[in-house]
């Protein structure tokens, strides 16, 4: 299945890209996705959204999902 991945703010700087498309085996979780895109551990406090909804590493992905990794927010 194909997953669209987005990185924001300091996470984009760390990963070195703002988005990418990743091919994963069916049943993969967000945790598995992170292992496929990075050799480093996911930084503590990283926030995760799937299809623009907050979720966590155990979330099971579906084909076409959009997954975003980003640091704590600092708006307002």
């Amino acid at each position, binding site marked *: 299945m194909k997953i669209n991945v987005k990185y*924001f703010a300091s996470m984009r*700087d760390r990963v070195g890209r703002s988005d990418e498309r990743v091919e994963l085996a069916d049943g993969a979780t967000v945790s598995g996705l992170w292992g496929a895109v990075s050799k480093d551990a996911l930084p503590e406090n990283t926030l995760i*959204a799937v299809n*623009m909804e907050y979720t966590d590493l155990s979330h099971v992905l579906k084909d076409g999902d959009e997954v975003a990794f*980003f640091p*704590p927010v*600092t*708006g*307002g």
Partner: protein
Amino acid sequence: MKVVVQTAEFDPWKEVADYQARYLPKGKHGGTVVFVGTMRDFNEGIDGITSMYLDHYPGMTERHLERVCQEAMQKWDVMDAFVVHRVGAVLPDDAIVLVAVWSRHRSMAFDAARFIINDLKHRAPFWKRESTVDGERWVSGNTVDHATK
């Protein structure tokens, strides 16, 4: 209810006046509470912040804020809510965020406005990068409102 995320500079007081004239029925709201967040030229002990860049997650940011406003309108007796947030390049003294809430009663308007701005600060996907005389840095975190539930 309206949520606007924009790169253009805005005058928060004019925005509130225009929104109220356009959308609020006359003689029904007793209390309006407005919060405006303004860019300071200092932060976390660092002076001389010359400019800031505000990143966001297009789509998710708007959706998140709309849901928060709806939640506030259901939780309290709120007639209307209006949020404007800047993105892109921002200069000191620019308004960054506007939250306006109209209610029949003042305590509802205070609670709802504070709920919206606190959620926005801790959950809405925006990120600030500050430019100081020493270079650029991502802001690490927002301060917690002691009244946050």
